[in-house]
């Protein structure tokens, strides 16, 4: 939703010095690789003009939909030869513009890679193609009593390849980790079109942990063409506890006390009053609409263990002045309690024409003060805000409400959002917990990282992709851009932009 990306994002460095580059011939060669699975006409290209970051639209030059790894390799090799940018795309549900097309690039859709290749019940692994949706994996192994743990809210639609690219989270991260904790092996196509593997079916592999590095790299280091995910046994018992509080502070203290009591919830979510009210009006989950804050705490595990934890949890909630405590054991009741949280975004969408979703992470102990400051920013900008929060892991999603039809309001929302991200950095957090940088938060990268840190990121990129053909212009800003943005983070006495001339 940040529009200030003009000149650089549409960089035309890829079209210079290409005297022998015949666009028609190039498209012809792509066709000979993909057959009919190529799109060049505007109406059909428009399907791909944006990912989940819909405010940023850009028609790709050409879209290809290969169906074999060999085709991906050939396409990438061709792009490498002519230095044509390649933007890989899964389901296009990402929220930060990681899959926003490049005007002069090839958009490589992995939608046809939608097969689950094998399930290994002995080693608890599933080998899947990158276009398989997150939920489809759990659906496939359900009858075996297994599931795939990370569950981003878009899990019905989002693809596992995209999950790797963004290192997606979900509501169960505190206990079960992010995508990086739940993938054991990847097959990658390099920018030169070579196929290689990272990770192993064993618990570790030789050399640097490139498997971890590939997670969250937003399609900038390689193209994921196969993913081996870890499966977990479905827990024997699950329960969800809902508790309302008369103040955000009480709820925040309860969260700390839950962890301090040695309880490790599978999910621990918080909503503030505007979010509670919007959700309740939308789905009637049974939330207490007079509460200032609401906690949803999911416990799972072995039946005997769960009883002990539930008793301890109830005590903590009681000690922190919880009102309207409700415990759900039955799956229907659990689903209803979760429904309000899971529908929080669309619910907020009903009370405001537009909203802008932020994704900062903060140390949990800063929660009450950060919410208070967001609330005063809300007054300053005269824009309402509703907060939903992955309280267990400190990942905050403030939803800024605005109306794009009111002149200047979008810009105000963006400025408000930028202030929230800077606040997250100030209290020791980060600008993005799970949505990624993409193009949306690229300017805030200048605030979070120093020139030297960004330079090292560019160095890592060049170690994998010397010609910078993979998803150029995303995730890591150039120092030049940061200089223009005027917010380069300088610490430990480093000079401002000492290496500016290198870019």
């Amino acid at each position, binding site marked *: 939703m940040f529009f200030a990306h003009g000149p650089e994002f549409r960089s035309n460095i890829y079209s210079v010095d290409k005297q022998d580059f015949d666009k028609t011939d190039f498209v012809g060669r792509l066709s000979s690789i993909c057959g009919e699975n190529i799109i060049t006409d505007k109406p059909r290209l428009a399907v791909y003009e944006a990912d989940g970051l819909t405010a940023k639209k850009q028609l790709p030059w050409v879209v290809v939909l290969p169906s074999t790894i060999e085709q991906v390799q050939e396409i990438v090799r061709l792009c490498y030869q002519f230095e044509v940018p390649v933007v890989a795309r899964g389901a296009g549900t990402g929220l930060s513009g990681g899959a926003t097309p490049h005007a002069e690039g090839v958009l490589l859709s992995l939608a046809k890679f939608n097969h689950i290749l094998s399930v290994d019940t*002995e*080693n608890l692994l599933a080998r899947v193609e990158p276009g398989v949706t997150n939920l489809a994996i759990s659906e496939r192994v359900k009858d075996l*009593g297994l599931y795939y743990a990370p569950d981003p809210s878009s899990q019905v639609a989002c693809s596992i390849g995209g999950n790797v690219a963004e290192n997606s989270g979900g509501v169960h*991260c505190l206990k079960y*980790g992010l995508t*990086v*904790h739940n993938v054991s092996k990847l097959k990658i196509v*390099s920018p030169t079109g070579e196929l*290689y593997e*990272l990770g*192993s*079916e*064993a*618990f*570790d*592999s030789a*050399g*640097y*942990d490139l498997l*971890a*590095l590939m997670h*969250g*790299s937003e399609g900038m*280091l390689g193209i994921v063409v196969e993913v081996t995910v870890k499966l977990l*046994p479905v827990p024997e018992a699950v329960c969800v506890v809902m508790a309302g509080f008369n103040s955000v502070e009480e709820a925040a203290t309860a969260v700390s006390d839950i*962890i301090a009591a*040695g309880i490790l919830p599978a999910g621990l979510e918080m909503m503030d009053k505007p979010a509670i009210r919007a959700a309740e009006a939308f789905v009637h989950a049974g939330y207490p609409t007079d509460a200032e804050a609401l906690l949803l705490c999911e416990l799972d595990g*072995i*039946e*005997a*263990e769960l009883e*002990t934890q539930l008793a301890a949890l109830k005590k903590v909630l009681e000690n922190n002045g919880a009102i309207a405590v409700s415990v759900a054991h039955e799956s229907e009741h659990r689903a209803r309690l979760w429904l309000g949280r899971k529908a929080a975004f669309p619910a907020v969408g009903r009370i405001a024409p537009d909203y802008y979703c932020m994704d900062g*992470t903060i*140390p*949990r*102990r800063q929660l009450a003060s950060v919410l208070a400051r967001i609330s005063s920013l809300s007054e300053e900008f005269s824009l309402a805000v509703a907060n939903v929060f992955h309280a267990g892991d*400190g*990942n905050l999603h403030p939803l800024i409400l605005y109306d794009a039809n009111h002149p200047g309001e979008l810009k105000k929302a963006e400025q408000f959002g930028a202030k929230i991200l800077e606040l997250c950095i100030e209290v*020791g*957090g980060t600008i*993005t*917990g*799970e*949505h990624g*940088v993409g193009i949306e*938060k690229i300017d805030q*990268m200048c605030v*979070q*990282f120093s020139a*030297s*840190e960004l330079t*090292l*990121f560019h*160095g*890592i*990129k060049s*170690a*994998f992709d010397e010609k910078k053909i993979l998803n150029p212009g995303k995730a890591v800003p150039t120092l030049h851009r940061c200089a223009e943005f005027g917010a380069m983070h300088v610490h*430990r006495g*480093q000079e401002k932009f000492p290496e500016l001339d290198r870019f």
Partner: protein
Amino acid sequence: MNSNDQSASLLAQVREAIEHHSPLVIEGCGSKKFYGYPPSPDLDRLDVSTHCGIIDYAPAELVLHVRAGTRLSEINQLLADNNQILPFEPPDFDTTATIGGVVASGLSGPRRPYAGSVRDFVLGVTLITGRGEILEFGGQVMKNVAGYDVSRLVTGSLGTLGIILDVSLKVLPAPEVEITRAIAVSCQEFQSRLQSMQRNMPLSAAAYQDGFLRVRLSGSETAVSAAEQKIGGEDTDNVYWGELNKLECFAGVKNLWRVSVAPASKLFLEDAAVIGWGGGIRWLADPEYDPRKVLAGEDGHATLVKYDKQNLSSETEIFQPLPDLLLGIHQKLKQQFDPAEIFNPGRMYRSI
């Protein structure tokens, strides 16, 4: 909390080393000196052990932020006092291990298959790079996807990419109760026995040695005693896991191989002196053959963890050789992090 911030002095030493093109051997307290290729004796030592102390620890945040020279034993004690643990259970070879070495070596203990590895719990690092700069990556929060994951990249890189100054780790609540059972079973059958415990059992370690499958159960008293009855076998001492973690049973072994494979793999079942990590590691003591030849074409890798110092041939590869393309990426990354090649040259691979 005691603290001793030596970052300025360490940075000065690194800058001098860069200027003089004089490589450094990065050392904590040397408890893992045996691991990797031996450093050339004429290189300068850089002692990181004095850069120590807890920077921040708030138990309710589940985050620990420490300087690299802090002793693992001190950290374990601090966590134990707060009913928490480092979930990856790193080995403390001669009780002098430092947390910097733990992260740099990336070695995890018996809990690894059930809780995760070192890198799974690394949240952030502060590094001195080979460009003579102090840089920070990741942070003290659990979810962070801003920028490439440098924190996890340097975990297990044996100091070849930079000097870890400070590190943030996710910690977890300690289990209420831990017990170990030993079950007599053949090496052909221990895997299926373990499979039967895969679900709804509070497993936190499993190893096969000398005809016994040992499993550790961790959790609430009720959960552990319920599982104990289902599993059968005999009670045995939890001390076993600490000893195995420190490789004590291999004290007399000259060439100790650690072969990492999928837990259900059938390789080396009979030859392994110990099978750890619920089947994921096959420890081979002085094998008369090259384990990598047996492993060829299979998914896994072999590391020569201990070797005969007198007879290390120039042909011997301590870590599994990498395919050319991967080695190339390693070399290019090394070039970016450490262009003057001053950090632990040749410790991990001869060419990086």
